[in-house]
């Protein structure tokens, strides 16, 4: 068999929400080129699946097949006969989709196979292409065999291997000992790897309700009282950069603090109508003085929370009236803007400094793309032309974009449209806020946006759950002496952890709950951490137990440590050790580190930043990077010398069970 080349390797990373794939390894590794939604649609026939939703056309006669604003109505059959039902592809809607992977588990095998086939066909690799698949940790031994069987028999691949996602993450970081925390959509996996050995015992697999979905759910729960905050709105809120998880010691801004910041620029507040801001219009951006009537008009159509119930407008047939109003409004806005530019340029400048960091503001806005509405309109049988009109009328996106920091670009990973998204030009498929068929609106949200990780009255929130699972996992690592090392090289990956401030908050939570501080009772014995110098008589050099858990490095302080004095006065005479010579005590403790208990410190591992493209988008999908590293090593450098993958010959000899010998 000829050796494999860099450009011949196909990497697939199936996920609960997004499946990543890439053909070929570039010289410098890049993020996955293909990002496909991990879902398929039931085809007409039972057991067959389509990558895009095919819907029956409601009004065949009136709809011209024109490309509409970025949406192409695929291969649409021409209306010929009246009896023949007509179908069209809907690239946007995900109504009725089947998601074959839930919480990492493959729940619908046929659909999973169909998805893999779809990925394979989309990438369309040449014949001599080995495949490396990133396996979810929760897949069982038996399931590995099924997947292997499928790949060999369906695609006739020349070689195949699977790598565990936690292992892959550690490759990306280039470290052999790590605690990998993978926060996904519906679950989190926590894995200990010591010396490149993955510990199955005690591994926390698919910890439920610890993924991004749980945070969306929590936001939805918090915002239930407020009309219009559907799950989809909450999902986009979570992905926007106004949603943030604050460190526990930072106060969530209340309305008090918000009013406190108002006087900072009274002129701006007055002119932009601070009152209007409190009334929560469509965004708290200054409207400019003048059109006070506009507010009143809007009230009719928009509810108090600033969310339009457009669906009901569509259904109510009030569309044209609404559109007219919107147009009028836009014109007025433009006028106001003009006016502002002319007369109030100075004030505009004054407005700028008011913009405060997100965490200091009570309310903030984000851009919402309404896909449900698109769906509703299609269902209502609206013509494409009509929809395009509506879209341009209501799309606030581009208009606002100049003024607001673009909330979408930072975190959005929604592919531009459904199935076939490939953007070969820029290499990554991470989309910008190009028109994607959804209608964009600004929505304002209050301090709830900081509470995504909180728990429902007293129940543990996602951070506490994950923290407990991490503690459980590391503490059940059979090698007691490695635990401290494991605590000091934590890897947090997964798109669930992408929410602003999540990683920091998680580390903070761990530190507050679990860190073991140096005991004040043992500073005179050999239990001193080895990285600290011998205590001086003044106590200036002693480890300070009073350090805050948030501080990672042991600090030294000048002056006599009051805790030292406390420690020298025996509180428990029976327990207090008589001074012993260190010569006597040291040998006995050579096997034990300073503190037999762990963790004494908790740190995140640093990722080597070799790859500029990866650095740009962040390392949340580092597992994919790890798979690229593994692919190059296994298929190209090693080329099968140490049996890092399974060839077709191996498969014919050993059957699917052979995967266990090469599985990483």
């Amino acid at each position: 068999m000829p050796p494999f080349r860099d450009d011949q390797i196909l990497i697939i990373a199936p996920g609960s929400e997004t499946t990543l794939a890439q053909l070929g390894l570039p010289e410098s590794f890049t993020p996955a080129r293909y990002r496909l939604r991990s879902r398929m649609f039931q085809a007409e026939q039972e057991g067959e699946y389509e990558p895009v939703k095919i819907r029956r056309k409601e009004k065949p006669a009136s709809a011209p097949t024109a490309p509409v604003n970025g949406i192409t109505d695929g291969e649409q059959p021409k209306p010929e006969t009246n009896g023949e039902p007509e179908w069209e592809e809907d690239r946007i809607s995900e109504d009725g989709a089947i998601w074959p992977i839930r919480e990492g588990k493959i729940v619908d095998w046929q659909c999973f196979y169909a998805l893999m086939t779809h990925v394979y066909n989309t990438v369309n690799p040449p014949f001599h292409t080995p495949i490396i698949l990133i396996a979810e940790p929760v897949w069982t031994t038996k399931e590995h065999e099924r997947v292997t069987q499928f790949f060999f028999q369906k695609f006739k691949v020349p070689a195949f291997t699977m790598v565990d996602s936690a292992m892959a993450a550690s490759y990306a970081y280039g470290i052999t000992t790590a605690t990998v925390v993978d926060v996904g959509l519906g679950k989190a996996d926590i894995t200990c790897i010591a010396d490149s050995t993955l510990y199955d015992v005690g591994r926390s697999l698919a910890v439920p309700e610890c993924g991004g979905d749980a945070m969306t759910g929590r936001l939805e729960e918090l915002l239930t009282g407020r009309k219009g905050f559907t799950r989809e709105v909450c999902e986009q809120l979570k992905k926007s950069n106004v949603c943030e998880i604050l460190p526990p010691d930072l106060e969530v801004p209340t309305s008090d603090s918000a009013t406190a910041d108002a006087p900072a620029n009274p002129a701006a507040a007055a002119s932009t109508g601070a009152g209007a801001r409190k009334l929560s219009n469509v965004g708290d951006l200054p409207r400019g003085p003048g059109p006070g009537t506009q507010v009143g008009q809007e009230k009719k159509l928009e509810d108090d929370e600033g969310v339009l119930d457009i669906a009901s407008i569509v259904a109510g047939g009030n569309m044209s009236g609404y559109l007219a109003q919107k147009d009028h409004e836009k014109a007025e806005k433009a006028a106001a803007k003009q006016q502002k530019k002319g007369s109030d340029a100075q004030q505009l400048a004054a407005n700028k400094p008011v913009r405060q960091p997100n965490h200091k503001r009570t309310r903030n806005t984000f851009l919402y793309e309404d896909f449900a509405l698109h769906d509703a309109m299609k269902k209502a049988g609206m013509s494409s032309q009509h929809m395009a009109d509506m879209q341009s009328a209501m799309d606030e996106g581009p208009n606002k974009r100049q003024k607001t920091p673009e909330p979408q670009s930072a975190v959005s990973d929604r592919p531009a449209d459904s199935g076939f998204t490939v953007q070969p030009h820029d290499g990554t498929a991470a989309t910008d806020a190009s028109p994607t068929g959804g209608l964009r609106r600004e929505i304002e949200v209050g301090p709830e946006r900081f509470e995504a990780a909180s728990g429902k009255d007293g129940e543990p929130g996602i951070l506490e759950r994950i923290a407990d699972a991490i503690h459980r996992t590391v503490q059940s690592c059979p090698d007691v002496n490695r635990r401290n090392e494991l605590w000091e090289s934590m890897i947090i990956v997964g798109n669930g952890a992408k929410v602003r401030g999540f990683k920091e908050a998680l580390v903070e939570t761990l530190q507050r709950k679990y860190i073991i501080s140096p005991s004040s009772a043992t500073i005179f014995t050999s239990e001193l951490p080895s990285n600290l110098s011998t205590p001086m008589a003044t106590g200036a050099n002693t480890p300070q137990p009073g350090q805050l858990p948030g501080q990672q490095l042991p600090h030294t302080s000048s002056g006599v440590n009051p805790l030292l004095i406390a420690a020298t006065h025996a509180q428990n005479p029976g327990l207090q050790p008589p001074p012993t010579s260190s010569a006597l005590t040291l040998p006995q403790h050579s096997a034990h580190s300073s503190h037999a208990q762990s963790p004494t410190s908790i740190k995140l591992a640093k990722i080597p930043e070799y790859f500029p493209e990866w650095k740009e988008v962040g390392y949340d999908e580092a597992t994919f990077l790890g798979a690229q590293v593994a692919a190059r090593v296994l298929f190209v450098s090693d080329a099968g010398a140490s049996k890092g993958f399974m060839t077709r010959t191996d498969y014919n000899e050993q059957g699917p069970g052979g995967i266990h010998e090469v599985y990483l």
Partner: protein
Amino acid sequence: MASAALAPTQAPKDEYAGDEINALVLDPGSYTTRAGFAGEDTPKSVVPTHYGVLASGEHVYGENAIHLPRGDMELVNAYGADGLVEDWDTAAKLWEYSITSRLTGARQTPPSRNGLNDTKDGNGDVNMDESMEQLQEEQDRALAEYPLLMSEPGWNPQKAREKTIEIAMEEWGVPAFFLAKNGQLAAYANGKATALVVDVGHHNTSVTALWEGMVLRKSLMKSPLAGSFLNAQIRQMFSTLQPPAPLIPHYMVKSKAPVDAGAPSNAIYTRFATPPKESFRKLEEDRVLTSFKESVVQCWQGPGRLENNMDSVKYAPPRPFEMPDGWNQVFGVERYKVAEGFFDARSAYPLPPDSDLEAPKGEDTIPSLIHRSLNACDVDTRAHLLANVILTGAGSLIEKLPERLQADLQSLYPNPRVRVIASSNSVERKYGAWIGGSVLGSLGTFHQMWVSREEYKEYGPGIVEKRCK
């Protein structure tokens, strides 16, 4: 060694054999249930035997479920204090969970059709349809594909053994089955066929004498001085400290601040709308105790008893321990004293009157168990057995416990060569019986010993008494 356990009078009928049989090994215990494929070095699936019963009556299994604090969950264990199954229905479900969750995958309702190959793609060299159909059939019964080797405590009564094979054959539909005593398996893990196996578990410590692969039934001794006894001792020690140590489990603490040794803790506690049940708290406290056992507790290594060596212990450096709420203290003599009950019942902390454990009796200590077990064996075998004392079980991982046992046995039996074999690898000791099963299940010669489905159908559950000695 394996053939020794086969009844020589009866030729196995329809023996289950074949190349490369991938057997499942299940080693159920009262604290954790271990499962994995034969031939691997550690069990892939280790599931706590405790399970949660929700207010709705639903049972939840696995680490993720039972460690989540919730007000409506009661934690239950299907095992009784004697290390035997009490609730068979749940135990069977739990065992099945331990296998399906990590090894075979969950049961599926097979889709009526598989849409794998549409007709256009039917020119492949392997007929996918057929093989997949076969797979589906196998999956109707979760475990129908693999033969199953299970372990049992040596004192398992006949009724329980028959019930076990019934579950395996009828409920799970395994093609072949074997039941082995865990003492036997632990000896195989150490490559011995003649040994005296001392297994310190959670609820029970047992001693089993093994002669050329055969368990000497009379020699079987067990006592309740095991892991849970040590937990009780540590609890008792904490409560007798002045002031008592606060045993607050992690879930109750939101954050802690460092405090001086012995000073009251300075922590923010979690508030629950409905606090979790007492059984949950106890299990979570056990997690803290486990950490205490790992980092602080130590046996006096001998020679002699702790009470005669207090001076040397007093001058050893104490070890600090920090509770989840930040309270911390150093433990000097105490850390030795809690484990002394294993060897000297009189030195143990007296248990509180409401404890569900009985006060330790002198005959229950590990050295007396061994003594009693040896007395029940033939005189000629004793020297051999004493030269091969295998120490296994997670409870034996207490620091210096093997040294102490060696010292105590040496003083008890001054003449023969006494050797305590304890693997220095904690995994090997923790999962000793499972590893032995893994070894046994992957031996080619073992395959003639399986009780096959056909045999079971012919002879009924009684065959387990005949075949699995």
